[in-house]
């Protein structure tokens, strides 16, 4: 029975191409069950080989279609896709519909996993890098991550890739939206998809004009026209992604980026951990006592927080 196998056994099977084992490992890190820490540990140790590509952009721009096509043209033996969709904030449920557009083109060659944003309250940014590393450590390459580029969290997830592709469609609206959402800053490559529609060239020109206003470091994001549902422009898009990967490797930027990401992840996890501890401490006896003193106006809320914070970082510090 799969559920009784240890993370190490599952990794061994996953590396041999057992998709069920890989599926189960992803569930372990995603759901943070008892083995999650061990799985994440193993994954991190063995990861770092895959090319990690983020695909982001407004809803319906063609991200899944592009992702499926890229998985095929990438030429990797074992491409993997992580498709992230928002959950309903009301019910926690989600409709994960990205596979439909991918299956058409991928026809079984890629490992595709859908992931909902819920269940991760603040931890999504932690679950996604873990999942990427599980795929990487299992020997998948490339690992393509699709997210809807709407909020700050999604954008930061997109930035968790080595190379981030921002997808826009013809029409000024999108470019302006992309600008607002902070997508222009995270873009390493632009795809103007639905180039079969009028004014795709205009959209490219608009982007180039924005890029003229200033781009980061030694890399100017190229703009590729794609008609993803027909597969047009996809090889060129992949070539630009590869060119960016090469640029990262040559310039040491890859290590710098990954280093920055590791740092962000550690900070994020410290914050999550501290938030959890904060809740524990406020519900503890000393928390109740401190709150009582605030209510009686013996000490200010700030002083109470300082007191509790001291016991948090002193008494119940990270080493304990």
């Amino acid at each position, binding site marked *: 029975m799969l559920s009784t196998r240890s993370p190490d056994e599952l990794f061994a099977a996953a590396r041999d191409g057992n998709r069920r084992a890989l599926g189960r490992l992803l569930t372990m890190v995603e759901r943070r069950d008892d083995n999650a820490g061990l799985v*994440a540990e193993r994954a991190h140790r063995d990861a770092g080989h895959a090319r990690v590509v983020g695909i982001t952009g407004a809803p319906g721009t063609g991200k899944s279609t592009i992702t499926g096509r890229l998985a095929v043209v990438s030429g990797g033996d074992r491409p993997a896709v992580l498709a992230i969709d928002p959950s309903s904030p009301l019910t926690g449920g989600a409709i994960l519909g990205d596979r439909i557009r991918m299956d058409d083109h991928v026809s079984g060659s890629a490992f595709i996993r859908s992931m909902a944003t819920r269940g991760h309250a603040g931890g999504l940014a932690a679950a996604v890098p873990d999942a990427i590393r599980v795929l990487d450590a299992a020997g998948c390459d490339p690992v393509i991550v699709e997210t809807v580029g709407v909020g700050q969290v999604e954008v930061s997830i997109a930035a968790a890739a080595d190379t981030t592709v921002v997808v826009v469609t013809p029409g000024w609206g999108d470019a302006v939206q992309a600008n607002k959402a902070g997508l222009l800053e995270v873009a390493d490559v632009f795809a103007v998809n639905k180039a079969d529609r009028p004014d795709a060239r205009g959209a490219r020109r608009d982007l180039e004009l924005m890029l003229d206003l200033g781009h980061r470091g030694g890399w100017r994001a190229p703009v590729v026209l794609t008609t993803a549902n027909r597969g047009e422009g996809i090889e060129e898009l992949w070539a630009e992604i590869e060119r960016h990967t090469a640029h990262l490797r040559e310039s040491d930027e890859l290590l710098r980026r990954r280093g920055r990401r590791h740092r962000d992840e550690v900070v994020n996890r410290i914050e999550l951990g501290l938030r959890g501890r904060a809740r524990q401490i406020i519900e503890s006896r000393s928390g109740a006592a401190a709150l009582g003193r605030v209510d009686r106006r013996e000490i200010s809320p700030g002083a109470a927080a300082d007191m509790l914070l001291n016991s948090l970082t002193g008494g119940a510090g990270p080493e304990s």
Partner: protein
Amino acid sequence: MEPANGDVLPTVAGELPIRVVLAKLGLDGHDRGLKVVARTLRDAGLEVVYLGLRQTADSIVAACEQEDADVIGLSMHNAGHLTLAPRMVQAVEKAGLDIPVVIGGIVPTGDVPVLRAAGVAAVLGPGASAEEVVSAVTEAVARRVTR
């Protein structure tokens, strides 16, 4: 209380949404009904991996493995259910998966016992209410022997 491997994140096990793979088997028609079911299940707090039209038993099994699905929901509106549904159940078993199959669609009442005998966990008629759909799916998961 001390988390393993310095893992500071809280465990959320126990409040996990059920993951259901939803598909239409065979070559027929549209997926309007299936989309309604998808929304119903989402609104009940489930995670719906939506495969849509023209799926085969093999493509559904492949998706279930990758998605680590808890249950399969199939919509059928053709006369093929007596062969297709058992084939689906067999494909799941053959893959060594322990995933119940729930069927919805136009199934003559007389065929329901046949499908149940073939291992289908539940059969929902076209008039099934949202509550009936949700409870058929969640109960099928709850009845599973192992996980």
